């Protein structure tokens, strides 16, 4: 028997049948954190990741019945939300005594909607490491009160929804236990060494929900705690390649350099990649990162038009991006840039600027990736569709897969968007008509 079983629902799109051979996969680190909080409280926990684990629905049913959990936790993104509900229905029938809680980015903003489904008992909004343990106390030990659990939403006896205030964001991230990676099938991921060193984002980008989920203030782990975790991952799981998955690993450059110094001091001899913002990194920091084993740095570029970057509140300058990319290349890092299109004010002319910019980057040796702009919950974009001149044409979240157009802009209908997206994908692939030079391949290149 397992006290608490966490399940990562699979992506619903068939593109994953083949994409998983090429696109980077990483463990569901958020579930790892929740599981370690449960274990710290003295309960058993387990994790099933249906994104990678070899299991059909019937087999899953049998596994869950054998586990006989008291509490089932399902993680949701917008793309996996409906699969979480489908799983919840199946699990309710398989283990009717178990309580089912949904968490994650989608239900953080759509908690009431989620609770309209009878198979969902609770929703936890926002960061839930503290709340999940309290919920386990209540469900497994009848201890405490649901009203006292921060961020919890639930149906009251009269059918109305009780929505507790969200918990204060945890400041002391060093106090969290490391994610329960021993519960995850690390060998099944192309990037098993995912590690988070901080939370929150000061960016104001209109397409991103990071601020709404983790707050607009950086909360950073100490360099020693970060490197301690790296060392433990290396010794416990034999990992040598790490992925610092923070929204902005270089949020505070001095602290990033401290992490680098500590990695070097401990002579860990690892390789790693990270994501950054051009306005929070400098050449000195990039050099320190390279010296400490960094191989790939991902920059969010989003557009090749300064006018568009300003309109989406990206807060970066193209000239600065060019300088940092040149610096990264000179130092020996492999920079990658992600783009998104179309933005609300994009025109054929601004998209030409973006294409030209992508071509310029390719000429320098910078890799690029592109996705279709999607109004995810919690974003400015999703809250201001009308004023931005956007029209929602598809509400089926099973298709919010970064490739399917779900909005039309003032200047582009869905057919235009398919065309410019495909042209940009081909451009990003360097004209090579094969999918497969995404980050997984980059990892293979440097290993």
């Amino acid at each position, binding site marked *: 028997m397992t006290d608490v079983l966490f399940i990562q*629902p*699979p*992506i*619903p*799109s*068939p*593109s*994953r*049948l*083949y994409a998983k*051979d090429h696109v980077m996969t990483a463990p569901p680190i958020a579930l790892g954190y929740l599981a370690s909080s449960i274990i710290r409280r003295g309960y058993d926990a387990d994790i099933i990741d*249906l994104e990678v684990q*070899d*299991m*059909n*629905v019937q*087999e*899953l049913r049998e596994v869950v019945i054998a586990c006989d959990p008291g509490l089932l936790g399902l993680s949701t993104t917008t793309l996996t939300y*409906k*699969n979480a509900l*489908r*799983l919840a229905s*199946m699990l309710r029938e398989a283990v009717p005594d178990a309580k089912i809680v949904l968490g994650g980015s989608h239900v953080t903003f759509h908690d009431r909607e989620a609770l309209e489904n009878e198979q969902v008992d609770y929703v936890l909004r926002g960061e839930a490491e503290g709340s999940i343990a309290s919920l386990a106390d209540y469900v497994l030990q009848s201890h405490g009160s649901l009203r006292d659990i921060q961020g919890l939403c639930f149906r009251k006896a009269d059918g109305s929804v009780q929505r507790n205030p969200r918990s204060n964001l945890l400041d002391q991230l060093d106090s969290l236990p490391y994610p329960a990676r021993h519960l995850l099938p690390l060998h099944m991921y192309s990037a098993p060494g995912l590690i988070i060193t901080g939370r929150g984002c000061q960016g104001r980008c209109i397409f991103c929900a990071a601020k709404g989920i983790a707050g607009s203030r950086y909360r950073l782990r100490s360099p020693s705690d970060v490197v301690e975790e790296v060392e433990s991952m290396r010794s416990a799981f034999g990992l040598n390649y790490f992925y610092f998955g923070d929204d902005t690993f270089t949020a505070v450059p001095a602290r990033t350099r401290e992490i680098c110094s500590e990695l070097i001091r401990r002579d860990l001899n690892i390789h790693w990649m990270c994501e950054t913002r051009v306005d929070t990194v400098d050449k000195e920091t990039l050099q320190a990162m390279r010296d400490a084993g960094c191989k790939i740095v991902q920059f969010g570029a989003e557009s090749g038009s300064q006018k568009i970057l300003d309109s989406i509140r990206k807060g970066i300058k193209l000239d600065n991006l060019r300088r940092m990319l040149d610096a990264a290349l000179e130092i020996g890092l492999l920079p990658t840039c992600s783009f998104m299109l179309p933005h609300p004010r994009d025109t054929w002319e601004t998209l030409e600027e973006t294409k030209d910019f992508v071509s310029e980057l390719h000429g320098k040796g910078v890799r690029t990736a592109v996705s279709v702009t999607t109004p995810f919950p919690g974003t400015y974009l999703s809250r201001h569709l009308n004023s931005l001149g956007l029209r929602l044409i598809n509400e089926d979240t*099973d*298709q919010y*897969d970064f*490739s*399917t157009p779900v909005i039309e802009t003032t200047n582009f209908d869905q*057919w235009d968007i*398919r*065309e410019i*997206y*495909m*042209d940009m*994908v*081909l451009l990003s692939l360097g004209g090579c*008509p*094969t*999918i497969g030079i995404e980050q997984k391949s980059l990892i293979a290149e440097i290993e």
Partner: protein
Amino acid sequence: MIIGCDEMNQENIARRKPRRTTEIWKLSRENNTITALGPDGLIELNQLGAFLWLRFDGLHSLSDILIELGDLYPEVQPAQLQTDLSEFFSYLRSQRLVVSTWDPLEGVCMNKGRQPS
């Protein structure tokens, strides 16, 4: 026969709702053709292929598509349309651009090593 199965399975197969496996594709509005990027590279579809591609969305069954084809090409014998549909579908399947049925939960939980149907 649709996708080369025996008569006993015909009814079930006709109810299947094929689903394309990539959303990286574009429609040329000048000549109603489609270019798609699949796991094995680019593919160009002519007008009829584009008509079918747009219906391989997991919502239209093969029998529904066959009826639409009949309306579109009333001069063509239904058996011939069925053969054409079957051959086209088989071709896309061989290119890993379509699966014959798709359940968002069951489909993605399929055993590794088992080929998609």
